């Protein structure tokens, strides 16, 4: 039997990644494996579990509450993610301008929400969305749109998903702005300069040169943003609590309630598995949009 000889560097490499690998195994692989097992049982908290095969998954297929939660998740994630990507890109392009004065200040301002706490900022956003007396209401009054100042952002089912999405966009755009900014800085300038010399307009350079070269970054932002936003619990909890009338009862809320409130741990685990599958499928589909890298 041939013994595998590891080089000195490989051994060191393994040593260095071992804490992360152990963390990943203990706090990701193991819980997911346990959830897979639990999803095939009728486990209710405090009672013994019995193997029931795929019954929980079959239940989810015909469960209107699960469908509603899925739709609510996709709606809020769709609104938030599209806004985050567009806004982050615009901000990154603006901040990438070498002639921009006070650029450090702007970068700080854009990134600051990222390092704040969801709960603390959630309280602030509750005040911002307050009808008639809130910050947003004041802004509407100020610009002559007083009929909008009484909008009940968090307590009407049409506006509540939008309110949650606005909060998420505010909190997360800064992070992806920095990612885009790093991407823009790594785009070889000679390509852009050559195009300009050949008579291309700034818009053409951006759409034909910069954006294609930013594609891997964009895919990363979309995948990472999707997985993060769809799993968010805190902004919904802070602003709407899943209401009104279940308008913002997204998948994380559905799973939490099913597990803890209704004690249906097996069923909630199955929902968690579907949630994981959605994220993986989305990531795989997005990864297929990466036909080439920066340097090809």
């Amino acid at each position, binding site marked *: 039997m041939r013994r595998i000889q590891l080089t000195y560097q490989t051994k060191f490499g393994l040593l260095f990644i071992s804490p992360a690998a152990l963390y990943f195994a203990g706090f990701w692989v193991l819980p997911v494996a346990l959830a897979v097992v639990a999803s095939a049982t009728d486990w209710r908290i405090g009672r013994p579990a019995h193997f029931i095969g795929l019954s929980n998954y079959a239940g989810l297929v015909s469960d209107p509450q699960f469908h509603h939660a899925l739709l609510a998740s996709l709606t809020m994630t769709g609104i938030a993610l599209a806004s985050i990507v567009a806004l982050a890109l615009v901000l990154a392009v603006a901040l990438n301008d070498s002639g921009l004065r006070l650029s450090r200040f702007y970068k700080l301002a854009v990134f600051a929400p990222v390092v704040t706490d969801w709960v603390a900022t959630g309280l602030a956003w509750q005040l911002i969305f307050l009808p008639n007396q809130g910050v947003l209401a004041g802004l509407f009054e100020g610009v002559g749109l007083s*009929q909008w100042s009484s909008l009940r952002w968090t307590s*009407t089912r049409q506006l509540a998903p939008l309110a949650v999405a606005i909060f998420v966009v505010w909190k997360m755009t800064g992070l992806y702005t920095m990612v885009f900014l790093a991407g823009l800085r790594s785009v070889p300038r000679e390509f852009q300069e050559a195009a300009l010399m050949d008579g291309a307009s700034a818009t053409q350079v951006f759409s034909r040169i910069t954006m294609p070269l930013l594609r891997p970054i964009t895919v990363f932002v979309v995948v990472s943003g999707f997985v993060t936003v769809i799993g968010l619990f805190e902004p919904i*909890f802070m602003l709407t609590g*899943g209401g009104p*009338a279940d308008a913002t009862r997204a998948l994380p809320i559905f799973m*939490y309630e099913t*597990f803890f409130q209704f004690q249906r741990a097996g069923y909630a685990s199955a929902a968690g598995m579907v949630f994981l599958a959605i994220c993986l499928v989305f990531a795989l589909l997005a990864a297929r949009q990466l036909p080439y890298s920066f340097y090809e």
Partner: protein
Amino acid sequence: MKGETRMRGTMCGPVVLAALVVAALVVFAGAATQAAPPQTLEIWVHEFPPLQDALSKKWIPEFAAAHPGVRVKVTAIPFAGVVAYDAKLLSALSGGAGPDLWDMGDWHYKVFTDNKFVAPLDPTVFGYASTKEMIDAYVPGTTSIFERDGKLYGLFSEYNTLALFYNLDMFKAAGVAPLPADKPVSWRMIADIAKKLTQRDSAGKLTQIGYRFGFFANFRSPQWYAQDFYALMRQYGQPDLTVNGQPAVTTKPVTDAFQLLYDFTWTDKVYDPSFPANWFADLPQGRVAMLLAGTWFVPAMTPHNPNVRFGVAPHPVVDPENRATYQNVQWSWGWSVNANKPQASQRLAQQFLASMLGKKGETEQAVWWFKTVGYTHPKKVFYQSAGYKQELAKNPWLKAWESAFTTYKIDYVTHNFDEVGQALIRAIDRVVYDQMRPAETGRLLQAELGRLMGTK
């Protein structure tokens, strides 16, 4: 160099010795501290400022003074919302953790006792010879919610029912006479009065509403959805959402109950679930003219609104001339002890309870709770006490509660914090948010209950 080395050698000894002495002192000090650790009693309560004040300003300091070395830590958790008190309590106790002592609604006792989260109370800690004697100290039947196999698994934090509060200044401004205090009025009359009390500004924006149900957009409490609906459903003649174990929500009484919610919201336009802002501030601050609440409403609203003028009337009914419609709901909150904690912690928790709720024959604690927080402990000696009678004389509005238990048929709601309760919430929301017709929401609820109960 040699001399230097020797010098270092001679200095090293005392330094090492001193370090060893210091280390030994630290170790001994640590051991001494460990030998007598301060005992911590952890308490969770639902967020209700008068309750938190009662614990932090009175009962904990008094208990700590009588039990040196005991630290009492209180955590107050919001009552409504996703990670609300109930869910947090359930998740903590399910994992074998949670506080030593907590308060919780009557709806949890069955599940929590089934799951052995709750420890039986030791009657001797409360000065009774047996559990039976302890149960007999309360008004007959009231402790049944806490009883299992001859043991008591909880003790009253509050025992309550609903009456109608209204803002006298808003009534006066609208030219409406105060409601009778001795006889309930009809829901129809409430709607008619509420129409006069609902106002909009010149732009059509609501500035005040005539009536507020206990649930609204910013307060999605399963308890309040259920309480409001069950009272109506029972007044219309059906005790529960099921009949003989089968879902029965397309019946006339249930449809009529949904219809009343529909009429208040859409026909009479006196209730808007998006309008209320704060459970305790809406009425005293003139945003809501009428609402149903328990005795604790006054201690909760008056500290920030000392000049509020309010009236109290019996719970409205479908037909004041028909005694069969005199139906109201009751609820209890109980204090319970964590069965997964060590015996010493359980005993300490019970000692704290005894000091806070009173031992055999004591009434001063119950009177204090009633007077300060509005919580009733249905002990026989409490109702006979001079303190209780003085409070009734001082606050005549309390008579609405005294008479409620004899005038109405009062019972607990059956479903609120479970999946059936959630389905009911969705059905009510479809009416008050989406303007869905009562028969249609009843049909959808019937289908959902059928699915949940496996009786499609």
